[in-house]
């Protein structure tokens, strides 16, 4: 078997390109519309994984590669999932101990608000000196 390159019809690429555009627009819309909480995280993750899948599968030709290469690259990434779990647990008790030992009871220090918001009514009197 010769070493073959990946050559596929141009329409496949154009369709995936269009799809990635639409998915990016959707994920941007999640922020623009202002979904919060569980809805936001679910939609962000959904569009992220769909985009990642199509880039890997079509642009990087993963669906046409031999299983030896696909699994050789895919299986090691499960170590990342384990690491996410470990560090999620770590950050949880770190925050707990910070709250227990360092919480002064004062409101959190926020020195300024992002630009474009500084002229809003709530902050007009605060820093007028």
């Amino acid at each position, binding site marked *: *078997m*010769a*070493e073959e*390159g*990946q*050559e*596929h019809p*141009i329409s496949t*690429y*154009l369709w*995936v*390109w269009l799809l*990635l*555009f639409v998915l*990016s627009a959707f*994920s*941007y819309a999640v922020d*623009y519309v*202002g979904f919060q909480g569980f809805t*936001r*995280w679910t939609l*962000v993750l959904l*569009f*992220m994984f769909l*985009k990642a899948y199509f*880039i890997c599968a*079509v*642009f*990087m*030709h993963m669906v046409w590669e*031999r*299983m*030896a*290469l696909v*699994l*050789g*690259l895919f299986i*090691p*990434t499960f*170590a*990342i999932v384990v*690491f*996410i779990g470990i*560090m*999620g647990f*770590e*950050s*949880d008790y770190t*925050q707990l101990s*910070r*709250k227990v030992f*360092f919480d002064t009871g004062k409101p*959190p220090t*926020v*020195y*300024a*608000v*992002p630009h*474009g*918001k500084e002229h809003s009514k709530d902050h007009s009197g605060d820093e007028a000196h």
Partner: protein
Amino acid sequence: MSATSKVPLKDGMEGFVSDWASDQRAFKGVPWGKAMMWIFLLSDTFIFSIFLISYMTARWSTVEPWPNTSEVFALTVNGVSVPLLLIAIMTFILITSSGTMAMAVRSGYQKKRKQAAALLYLTAILGLSFVGMQAFEWSKLIEEGIRPWENPFGARQFGSIFFMVTGFHGFHVSVGVIFLFITARKVLRGDYDTGRRGFFTWQKGRYEIIETMGLYWHFVDLVWVFIFAFFYLW
């Protein structure tokens, strides 16, 4: 490959087992340069994962409020504040450059020398504009007082994570742009038709190099998908 080509290769899971158990090269039917690029990208995946995991850890463990990225990265257009406008434009540019890259690979295999070179140059220029916008974004945030050690909007870790993650990604894009320009020049000059040797490796190149280059470029786009979701949208 000539010695192994007598035995037909199996497909699917059976192929996975027999390829890896063959006591030979595991990645059959793939040029070595492409296999090595994939191995490199796997290691790069781990590096970016560690960055994003450290971001997760910092954000989940801080007791100070995390800055609202929707407001921090907003741009004011005609007096209206549009959230994440520049980031959205950067995302679309990177996806567009991925599309042109995919088509450059195809043109290369069809030996359409000039078309492939033109698409590679276009990809490089789109990548360059991405880096330019990132430089603009950085200077804007530095002007607003965001530093790796502090920022006026909330948790201090925000600045360090931002500069580290987007900086490392921007570095990847910059390196990609340089290599895209080199590859495009080689394609245009006809190096892969005439068998002209490379200036560094002194090896003869083939059009497969565009596909390997493409893998790197799509990976940069792939990483941006994750940064966009976790850092900007979360």
